[in-house]
C-alpha cells in the first residue's frame, strides 16, 4: 500500500503583495465579489493549470492560515460599530477558510475532491501531504495545490505586537499554486519525494526525520531551521514560497542542485519537504 505511484510537481505560480489582474481568466461578473486574496488565488491557480495543460484537476487542495481575513475583519468591525444588525451576507459567506478552494471548484466546475487546511505556517505543507499521499495511492492522478494568505493593517499590528523586532510593514503576503501529477509532465518535472510534518519534535526525532530524507550521495540544499523560522514569521505562506523557489533552483546543469530539502518551522510544527529533479535521461 506504501505508494505505488510517484508524485511530481509539474507546474507552479507564485505572487506576492498586491492585487492580481484576473480578467485574463474570469468574467467581470465572476470577479465582482472577489477580495484581494481570492483574486490572487484565482490568478496563481489558473496560471499553474494553464502551464500544466490540465483543464480540470482531480482535486483542489488549499492551505490558508487565516483565510479571507479582510472580509472576516470587516464583518467583525461592522458588528462592533453597528451592533448585530444590517450586516452584509457577502462578507460572511466569504469569510470561511474554504471559500478559496470551493470558489476555485465553482469556477472550474470541478466536482472532484476539495479540501482546505488551516494550520498556521504549515497549512500548505498539510495540503501538499494530502495530495502527495492520494496521488501515490492512485486515488487521484493530479491535484491543484495552493497556499493563499492576506494581511490587513490590523493583522500587521497584531503580529508586530507578538514580534516587536519586525516592523508591521515588513510582514509579507503571498499566494502560490502548483499542479501535482502522477506522470512527470512538463519542461522540468520535479519529484515530490516525501512530506513530513512534526509537532513539537524533539531534537532527536527531527534529526532522524532529516536523516531519513537524505539518501546517500544526495546533496541537499535548503535553508537552515533558524532561517526557516524567521521566514515563516514574516510570511504565513513561507512553506509554499520556499517550495516554489526550491523548484526554480533545481537544475540539470552540472554543479547545480539536483534535490532540495525545504524546512519550515512555524508555530509548534516543523515541516520537511523533499524535492528531486527528474533526470533528463529518464533514468
Amino acid at each position, binding site marked *: 500500500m506504501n505508494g505505488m505511484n510517484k508524485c511530481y510537481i509539474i507546474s507552479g505560480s507564485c505572487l506576492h503583495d498586491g492585487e492580481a489582474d484576473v480578467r485574463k481568466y474570469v468574467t*467581470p*461578473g465572476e470577479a*465582482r*465579489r472577489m477580495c484581494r486574496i481570492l483574486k490572487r488565488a484565482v490568478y496563481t491557480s489558473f496560471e499553474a493549470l494553464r502551464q500544466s495543460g490540465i483543464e480540470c484537476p482531480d482535486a483542489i487542495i488549499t492551505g490558508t492560515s487565516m483565510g479571507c481575513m479582510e472580509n472576516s475583519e470587516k464583518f467583525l468591525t461592522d458588528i462592533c460599530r453597528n451592533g448585530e444588525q*444590517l*450586516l*452584509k*451576507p*457577502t462578507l460572511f*459567506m466569504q469569510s470561511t477558510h474554504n471559500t478559496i478552494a470551493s470558489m476555485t471548484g465553482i469556477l472550474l466546475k470541478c466536482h472532484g475532491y476539495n479540501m482546505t487546511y488551516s494550520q498556521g505556517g504549515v497549512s500548505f505543507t498539510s495540503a501538499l501531504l494530502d495530495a502527495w499521499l492520494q496521488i501515490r495511492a492512485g486515488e487521484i492522478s493530479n491535484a491543484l495545490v495552493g497556499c493563499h494568505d492576506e494581511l490587513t493593517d490590523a493583522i500587521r499590528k497584531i503580529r508586530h505586537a507578538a514580534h516587536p523586532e519586525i516592523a508591521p510593514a515588513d510582514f509579507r503576503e503571498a499566494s502560490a499554486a502548483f499542479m501535482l501529477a502522477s506522470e512527470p509532465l512538463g519542461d522540468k518535472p520535479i519529484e515530490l519525494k516525501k512530506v513530513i510534518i512534526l509537532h513539537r519534535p524533539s531534537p532527536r526525532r527531527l534529526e532522524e526525520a532529516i536523516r531519513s530524507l537524505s539518501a546517500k550521495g544526495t546533496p541537499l540544499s535548503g535553508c537552515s531551521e533558524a532561517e526557516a523560522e524567521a521566514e515563516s514569521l514574516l510570511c504565513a505562506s513561507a512553506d509554499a514560497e520556499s517550495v516554489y523557489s526550491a523548484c526554480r533552483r533545481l537544475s540539470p546543469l552540472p554543479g547545480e542542485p539536483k534535490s532540495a530539502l525545504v524546512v519550515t518551522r512555524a508555530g509548534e510544527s516543523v515541516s520537511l519537504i523533499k524535492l528531486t529533479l527528474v533526470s533528463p535521461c529518464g533514468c
Partner: protein
Amino acid sequence: MEELINQLKEQIIEALNLEDMTPADIDADAPLFGEGLGLDSIDALELIVLMEREYGIKLGNPAEGKKIFSSVASIADYVSKNRKK
C-alpha cells in the same frame, strides 16, 4: 420617481460590487435576476439589507423580495409606497 430610480441604481452598484457598471448601464425595467444582471440569492439578501438600511423597510422573508426585486423600477415603486425614511 426618476430621482429615486437613479439613487437606487447607485446604491445597488455599490452594495453588489458591480464595479464596472454605471447607472446608465442598468435598464430600470430589465430583470435584475437570472438573465438580466445575473444576480443570485446572495444579492437578494444584500438588497434586503439595503432596503432596511436606506429606507427603513424590513423584509422578513427572502421570498417576499422576489417580486419586489424583479427590476429597479419595481423596487422604486415598492420603496415609494413603503419607505419609513
